[in-house]
């Protein structure tokens, strides 16, 4: 950090300690050091007291996506996958895009615990007409990765965060080509049409099957709606409320035989770790 805490002790400033205390971020587990530091720096450089509304959602900043454009495409796509409706909030309101952004910035997004050694060979059964010796390291596109054919599914040298960048930018180029406008400017139906093209593997992507990207997008959208709020999605446990899911609890020994459905108030992992 460039600021020293003493710099912020002016009339309108807050001490770092006070800031942390007010925002409740001290106990937050998920906020990474770099984002945290960045936020603090910006706040203190402006020397303004952040208003209450902003303080509540300080995690809602981009950690992985550098281009806002990419993030906006992601937001639009997740909202089509999990739209706001009579059941309750959609992906954007639930914080799903930020959830995905944080996931991609971390070890999962970098495939840290996956086997990522070469060669990344084409799968013979999915691409039987192609040269079996063809090697993705040299040739790139259209490798069978996740597909319905009998093949070990993840066979790309790209990691998940790279796949998202490629996939999201392709949404925009498909949209330009097909509808003459950016993906985020297209209508909901048009966006759905494009999502289906990815889902059905009708789009060629570099180094990855469109379907693999789509499945990742779908998986992470659902995860973001329903994972513990500590990861930045499922805001205010609204995803769990829709599902009548109570969150982590000590146990249900006295309820397990109960015939009626029991609706409970939601509790998060933070509640569980704080109060048991």
């Amino acid at each position, binding site marked *: 950090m460039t600021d020293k805490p003493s710099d912020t002790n002016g009339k309108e400033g807050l001490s770092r300690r006070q800031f942390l205390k007010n925002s409740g971020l001290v106990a937050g587990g998920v906020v990474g050091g770099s984002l945290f530091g960045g936020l603090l720096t910006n706040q203190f450089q402006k020397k303004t007291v952040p208003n209450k509304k902003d303080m509540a959602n300080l995690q809602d900043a981009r950690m992985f996506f550098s281009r806002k454009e990419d993030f906006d495409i992601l937001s639009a796509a997740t909202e089509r996958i999990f739209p706001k409706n009579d*059941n309750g909030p959609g992906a954007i309101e639930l914080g799903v895009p930020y959830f995905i952004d944080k996931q991609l910035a971390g070890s999962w997004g970098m495939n840290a*615990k996956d*086997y990522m*050694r070469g060669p990344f060979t084409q799968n013979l059964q999915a691409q039987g007409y192609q040269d079996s010796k063809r090697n993705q390291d040299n040739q790139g596109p259209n490798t069978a990765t996740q597909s319905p054919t009998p093949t*070990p599914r993840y066979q790309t040298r790209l990691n998940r965060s790279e796949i998202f960048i490629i996939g999201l930018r392709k949404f925009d180029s498909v949209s330009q080509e097909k509808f003459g406008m950016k993906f985020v400017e297209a209508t909901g139906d048009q966006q759905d049409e494009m*999502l289906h093209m990815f889902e059905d593997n009708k789009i060629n992507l570099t180094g990855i099957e469109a379907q693999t990207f789509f499945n990742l997008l779908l998986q992470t959208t659902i995860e973001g709606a*329903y994972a513990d709020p500590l990861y930045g999605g499922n805001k205010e446990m609204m995803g769990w409320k829709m599902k009548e899911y109570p969150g982590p609890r000590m146990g249900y*020994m006295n309820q397990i035989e109960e015939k009626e459905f029991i609706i409970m108030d939601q509790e998060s992992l933070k509640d569980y770790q704080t109060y048991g």
Partner: protein
Amino acid sequence: MVKKLEKVDVVVVGTGWAGGIVSAELAKAGYKVVALERGGNKEREDYTGVKDELRFTNRFEMMQNLSPETITSRNTLEEIALPVRTRHEMMAGTDLGGGSVHWAGATYRFMPYDFEIYSKTVERYGKKKIPEGMMLQDWGITYADFEKYYDRFEKTAGISGERDPFGEERSNDYPNPPMMESPAISLFKEASKQLGYHPYQVPSGNLSQTYENPDGEVLNQCMFCSYCTQYGCDFGAKSDPLVTVIPTAKKTGNFEVRTDSYVRRVLYEGGKAKGVLYVDTNTGLEYEQPADVVVLAAFTFTNNRLLLLSTIGQPYNPKTRKGVIGRNFNGQFNVTFLGARGFFNKRKFNLYMGAGALGGALSDFAGDNFDHTNLNFINGGGIELRQYGDAAIASNHVPKGTPRWGAEFKEKSILYTNRNLVVWYTPAIMSWWHNYLDLDPTYKDEFNDPLLRITNKYTDQDRTIAKFGVQKSKEIMEQMGADIIDEDVVPEEFDHIYQGGHYAGGVVMGADPATSAVNNYLQMWDVDNLFVVGGSAFPHFGGHHPTATIGALAYRASEGIEKYLKNGGGQLAEGKRKIFQA
């Protein structure tokens, strides 16, 4: 530079149920035991207060890091195997306690039929019943002789259950009463009874009451919190090595466990195992741990790979069907847990509650409990309804025909969150000449050693038995009164997904050294002081979950190792071939 350490009586590779039991038994008998675990050190506290679905269920917190090593997979001998790269596709437990910490807790015994499957099949149906290419063989020990080891394991683990009405002989009841019954389980049992079947409560490693096991370890009562399968228990209420055999071994003062220790070779010289070579993965330093007895008690994949890398035993060759290491690969695949899912429009269940082994089961279509004369398969399996307790990401089942995303998906997935139940069949998986394990010619681990390669494809037996199970499950679901019933589709071919953690064979037990690698004490025929313990010893996969059999085999092996050490060496069993030679 390899540093040579002081010799011990026994070195054990792996710390799951298999390695944990062997370590505890031999340490209790006064032998110096060192156990090596590739994963990190864990204590019960590591699993307290961390009920987080994303971390454990979706990001596989407790599974092996595949970055340094995985397996490769293909269907047929002609194909090039590709690595199984992500933990979505491959789940093998890691860290102290191994896969036995994240298990669900279902603790069935295999059936007397399984142990003498060749003899009993021929006796009832004749040799013609066995299709060409099925590697059907007896296990080299009968259920009657093996029963006492099941009993030992059930007492150590504090299994909670009731007798299966179809059940085999037992010397004792389960040490704890069965788990409580949820309304979903009651519905399954009532429907099954109406159809003339004989349901019972799944024998469970989640405890129905507080229990002290014969080693003096205390286990707590299960709270049905649902964070069970793929998690470590928050309360010490799921039986696992961390709350039983590992502390038991430690208390003796004869046991040392070294975590972050990745074994690369069994050292072998002049017909004897000398010890193992391992790497401390924190420092990269290599060590040689000499021992009088070497026990491989790791996961099936590692047991096989270490023998192949160490060139011990004759590798199986599918073309000649000769050789034993890697022979009879089997397990539970995507033909295994198939059945019927029912959606209930007028009834809700508290599906966010549950426990790993909470469920109802029936054995009317298990093993050879039913006549196979007019069926195109042998063996059978259990039928189950389990209430694991699903968290919010997992509980997104929708009726077939519902879109996978969008408004309709959202509406239906929320509507049916607590309104769907599944009944499935767990058919036995037989072994075939073309399903085996060897070393991959292309892909390497971080030390440049070849990965283990799996060649596995389905046969008509697999598809037919699975379809049979789907139909039976569907009939029960209809009787349960579901409004919409979706049958599972039986896949044509194996999909290279190793998610279930139940993979077996390759170092199989038996009475004949030509068709088995180890005798019925799991002692290698070729190397008297090398014991290979675990699911790797299964000649085929019975129609129930494997843990009780692995635990029982570990007690059997421990008895053998003790005998071996007392006798001062030698083979503990007479192989058929040796009898012929004499």
